[in-house]
C-alpha cells in the first residue's frame, strides 16, 4: 500500500537469558526519515537496531521493510540491501580501502569496473582523497577509518542506513564535522537513517525525530523541538534537561564577558 511506512516494527520483544531487553517495541518510520535512537547505555538500542538487519532475531514481534516481512528470504540478501555502520567499524584488515568499500558490491556480483567507479565516487562523497583507495586500514586515522566505514555501508546504494554510535570514539571536532557531513549525504541520497547515539545533543542537532528508549521501552518519540518542551516521564525529562542546562551555562559565560 502506498502509505505503508517504509520500516515498521511491531511488538518486537527480546529476552537475553531471563532478562527482558526489549518490551514489545513498536515503531513506524516513513521513508526519508532521519531518526535518532537515544537512551542510557544498556537500554537496548543496539539490540533494537540489530533486529532490523537480523543480526539479532527477536523472540516475538515482526519487522517489515518496504512492505515485506524481513524474514522472507535469506538473511544475507536482506543485509546486502541495508547499510550498517557501527562504533567498532570492523574494516577488514587484509583488504585495502577500495576492497573494503567494494565488499557488498562484490557480493552482489558487480563488475570490477563498476566497483572501481563506485569506490572513487564514495571516497569523494565521504571527502577522502582518491589515492586512499590503495591504503591499508591500519594506516588510517580514527576519523578516516570511520569515513571509510560509512562509505562501505553506502556502497551498494542501500535505501536504509543503520548506524550504531558511528562517531562514538571520535574527538568532538571530527565528530561534529562527520555528523554534519553525513546528514548532508542523507539528504542528498534520499536515505532513511536510524542512528543510535547516547549523546542527546548530537541527536537534537542532527535528527528529524528522536526516539527515547529506556529499559527496553520507548518512553518518548518526538521531533527535536517538541522533545525540548516535553513534560511527563521524569527519566526523559532528566535526559533532555542536561543539554539545556549546559546550553544555559554556556550562554551565561558568554554574557559575563
Amino acid at each position, binding site marked *: 500500500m502506498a502509505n505503508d511506512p517504509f520500516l515498521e516494527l511491531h511488538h518486537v520483544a527480546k529476552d537475553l537469558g531471563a532478562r527482558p531487553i526489549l518490551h514489545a517495541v513498536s515503531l513506524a518510520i516513513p521513508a526519508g526519515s532521519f531518526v535518532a535512537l537515544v537512551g542510557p547505555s544498556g537500554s537496548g538500542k543496539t539490540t533494537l537496531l540489530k533486529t532490523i538487519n537480523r543480526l539479532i532475531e527477536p523472540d516475538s514481534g515482526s519487522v517489515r521493510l518496504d512492505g515485506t516481512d524481513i524474514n522472507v528470504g535469506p538473511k544475507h540478501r536482506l543485509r*546486502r540491501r541495508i547499510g*550498517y555502520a*557501527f562504533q567498532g567499524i570492523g574494516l*577488514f*584488515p587484509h583488504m585495502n580501502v577500495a576492497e573494503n568499500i567494494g565488499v557488498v558490491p562484490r*557480493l552482489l556480483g558487480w563488475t570490477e569496473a563498476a566497483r572501481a567507479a563506485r569506490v572513487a565516487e564514495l571516497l569523494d562523497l565521504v571527502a577522502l582523497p582518491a589515492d586512499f583507495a590503495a591504503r591499508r586500514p591500519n594506516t588510517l586515522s580514527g576519523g578516516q577509518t570511520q569515513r571509510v566505514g560509512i562509505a562501505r555501508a553506502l556502497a551498494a546504494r542501500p535505501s536504509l542506513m543503520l548506524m550504531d554510535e558511528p562517531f562514538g570514539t571520535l574527538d568532538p571536532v571530527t565528530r561534529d564535522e562527520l555528523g554534519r557531513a553525513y546528514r548532508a549525504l542523507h539528504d542528498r541520497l534520499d536515505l532513511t537513517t536510524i542512528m543510535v547515539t547516547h549523546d542527546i545533543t548530537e541527536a537534537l542537532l542532527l535528527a528529524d525525530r528522536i526516539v527515547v528508549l529506556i529499559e527496553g521501552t520507548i518512553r518518548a518519540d518526538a521531533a527535536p523541538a517538541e522533545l525540548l518542551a516535553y513534560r511527563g516521564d521524569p527519566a526523559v525529562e532528566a535526559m533532555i534537561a542536561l543539554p539545556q542546562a549546559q546550553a544555559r551555562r554556556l550562554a551565561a559565560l558568554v554574557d559575563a564577558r
Partner: protein
Amino acid sequence: MSPSLTEALTDLPTLLRAHALLSGTAVLLAILIGLPLALRAARSRTFRIPLLGAAGLIQTVPTLALLALFYPALLLLGRATSLPVPALGFLPALLALTLYALLPILRNGVAGLHGLDPAILEAADAAGMTGRQRLLQVELPLSAPVLLAGIRTAAIWTIGAATLATTVGQPSLGNLIFSGLQTENWVRVLVGCAASAGLAIAADLLLGLVEAGVARRSPLRIWAAMGMFGIGVLLALISIGGSGSERRTIAVGAKNFSEQYILASAIGQRLGAAGFPVVQRDDLGSAVAYRAVAAGDVDVYVDYTGTLWTNVLGRTDTPRADVMRAELTRRLEARDGVVLLGPLGFENAYVLAMRRSRAEALGVRTIDDLARVAPRLRLASDIEFLTRPEWRALRKAYDLRFGDARAYSPTFMYRAIADGGADVISAFSSDGRIAALDLVTIADPRGALPNYDAVLLLSARAAKDKALIAALRPLLGAIDVGAMRAANLKVDRAEGKKTPAEAATQLLRTLEKR
C-alpha cells in the same frame, strides 16, 4: 665409499619416499580432519574445551606407544568387522601420526579463528556474507598465518615421529636408524637421521614460503611452494608406480637384533632370486612379530621355539626339543593358521660359557662338572638372566652356586670374561663373540635349559605358495650354530663390520658350497 655408506645410500631413496609419503599423508589427513574440527571448536565453547583436552591427552601418549596401540586396535577392528583391515604397516602408522599431528593444527586453528576481532566478524555478517563467504573471505585469510604455523609444527613433528613407523612394520627412515643402532653401524644411523632432518627442513622451508606468501599477500610465493610440493608428491608417486609386478609382494619380518636382520635378509635374497618382490619389515616387537604373521601382515620370519612356547602358548614346562617343536607345529597351525616350516639348524638359547683354556684347566665339560667347582668361580650375567626362570631351573637341576654372581650390560659382560674378571658368563648360543673370544659352551645333560631352536614361520597364505616354500626349504637344517655365530660376528664386531645384507649374502654362499 665404505660398504655401509653405499648400502645405506642404496636403501635411502625407497625409505625416503616411503617416509615422505607417510608423513605427508598424515599431515594432509590431520589438516582435513583438524580444520573442520577447529572451526566447530572456535564457534562453540562446549565443543572446544573437551576437544582441545582430548588432543592434548593424545599428545602426552608417547608416539611409540600410540603406534603400538593401533596394532591390537586394528586387529580387533578387522575381527569385529571381518574386513581385511591391515593391522601392520601403512595404516596403523598413518592413523597414529595423524592423531599426533592433530594437536598443533587444532590448537592453532582454534586460536587463529577464535581470536579474531568480533567487530570484523560483525562487519562481515552485516555486509551480507553467507557463512561460507565469511569463512573463505574473512576468517581463513585472517587466521591463515596462525593456522599455517600450526601446520608447520605438525609437519616437523610428524616427519620426526614417522621414523618410529618402522616398529609397526611400515618402512621409513627409521629403518636406517633402528637397524644401524642395533648393529652399531653409525654410518647407517647418521644417514637415517640426516635424511629425516633434511626432509623436515625442506618441509619447513616450503611451508615457511607459503606462510610468507600469505602474510605478504604474494600469490607468487604460495604458488611456487605449492608447485614444489606437487613435484615432490609426483616424484614419490611415480617411483612407486614403477615397481609394479605380477607377483604378490612377500613381507619378511625381523625383530630388532642383528641375527634377525641377517636371517630376514637371507630369506629376502632367496625369495628375490626366485622372482618374488620382497619387503622387509624390520624391528618388530617380539609380540608384534608373531601376531603379524598370524594376521598375515608378515609372510615369513624366524622365531625361536622357547619364545613361542612361553609367550605364544603360555607354557611354563620345558619338554625335549623335538616334543616341543612337534607340539608347536600342531598348535600354531590349528590355532592361528601359522605354519612352522622347520628348524634352521641352530639354537639361540641361554647357555653358560667359559674361556676354553679355563674350562680345560678345571676339567669342566658339563654343568655337573661346573657345579663342583662353581663356589670358587665368578659368574657374570646379562641384566635379565639372574631373574629369569632359566637361572632358577639351572640352580634347581644342578644345585649350582657361584662364589660371586653379578649382572652386566652385554658389552661389559664379554669384557669381564675376556680379561679374566669373570670365569663363567650367561650367553646366547648363537652370539658371534662366543667364537671370537674362543669361549666354550657348557653342556646341559639334564635338559634344564629350555630349547630355543630357530624356526621358520609362515603365514597361512604364504604356506599355500609352493614356489615360496621351494625357495625357502634349502635353508632348513642348513645353518649350524658355527655359521650363524660367524655371520653375527661380522655384523656385531667393532672393526671391519659388515652390514646384515652382506653377512646374509656370505652366509648363503657358504651354504651353497656345502
